[in-house]
């Protein structure tokens, strides 16, 4: 740091940082979320590749309709697509879960400004879900 005076007037590291447990919780959320998504995608892709069917090509070139029911479909082809949809759902929800954890953590240390900010991000992600589900 060039300016010694500037360094002195700075807030202490304890003030400027976030709760350390938050970093750990976010680390595990991201790792587990991406890991689970990767496993689901691998399983789904394997099912689709090794039980080839007419519907496979369509899921390569066109959007796949999403519904909760499709996650547990009975047919082999449906199972593969269901696993892929589940994998992407987990992937997409991973950052959302880390926002939830952040909101809780900021709340427990009574950081009102940041609790509000994180909750606002959460509400916006909720809006995004509604816009997707009810276009």
């Amino acid at each position, binding site marked *: *740091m060039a*300016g010694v005076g*500037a*360094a002195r007037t*700075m*807030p202490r590291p304890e003030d*400027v*940082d*976030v709760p350390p447990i*938050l*970093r750990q919780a*976010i*680390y595990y959320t*991201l*790792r587990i979320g*991406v890991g689970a*998504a*990767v496993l689901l*995608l691998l399983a*789904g*892709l394997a099912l*689709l*590749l090794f039980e*080839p069917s007419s519907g*496979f*090509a369509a*899921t*390569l*070139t*066109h*959007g*796949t*309709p*999403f519904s909760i029911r499709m996650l547990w479909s009975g047919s082999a082809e449906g199972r593969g*697509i269901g696993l*892929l*949809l589940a*994998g*992407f759902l987990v*992937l*997409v929800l991973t*950052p*959302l879960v*880390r*926002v939830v954890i*952040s909101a809780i953590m900021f709340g427990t240390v009574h950081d009102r*400004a*940041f609790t509000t*900010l*994180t909750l606002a*991000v959460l509400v*916006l*992600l909720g*809006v*995004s*879900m509604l*816009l*997707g*589900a009810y*276009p």
Partner: protein
Amino acid sequence: MLEFATIPVSPLELVLLLLLFAIAAGAMGALLGLGGGVFIVPVLVVLFAVNVQTAVVASLVSVIGTSSGSAAAYVREGLSDLRVAMFLEIATVIGGISGALISVTILAGRSQLLALAFVPVVLLAAALMYRGRAVDTVPNPSPDRWADRLRLHGQYYDTARQETVEYRVTGSRPGLAISWCAGVVSGLLGIGGGLFVVPGMNSVMNVPLRVASATSNFMIGVTATAGALVYLLSGHLAVALAAPVALGTVSGSFLGARLHRTSPTQSLKLLFVVILVLTAVVMFLRGVGWLV
């Protein structure tokens, strides 16, 4: 019709080729700190004859994987500034939702416009890479009330200098504006938005470059999620296309991060600049209809 560079292929061959190219795109993205999106969409569009919007959606979900995967490590090391990230995320998320909405409504079925929108973005990436930046941060930036009140100023341990470096954040409002733009571009073009957020954080908000790129990486997951939720739930995600793309870019980014420890040389950077300029030319030709 499934094809690769105009040659018809079977689904299995296609998936393997997608994996291969996605690994390369993910590795290149991680090497440059760009995320794979800038490379993966043009590859899908040009080589695999995928519709631009379908390519964008596949890229956007894979961006979540690459950024979350690499962000985890940065977060634990304390390199990502979580407070700055969560402050700016408000803007990137609003942008991400707007971008995705514009794409599924106004731009639905207008692939050429999307292709054209890529041109300035890819050229900007090339310019930023070519130019670089000499000054990292200044010790006494102009005071910023929001940054003070939200305690956005921070510090990190610089492994190269072996000391704790403190920094004072400024320009929080222009930072929000840049983040919003980054979000729109992310939702629209399926890239992470780090292209705008990193230089914005560094030169406008006075955040050290290393912290800015680790923080951007962390934010990208949430930014991309905002757009991806719209696309996924409204049925715009081609799952069998996106799966190998996501798996490939995630593994590619781990590979790239390994290589990153030895930072890219000048000649490597120049090579990427050439690749990016060529990408811009191809997307332009597609956009104006001279190339299908």
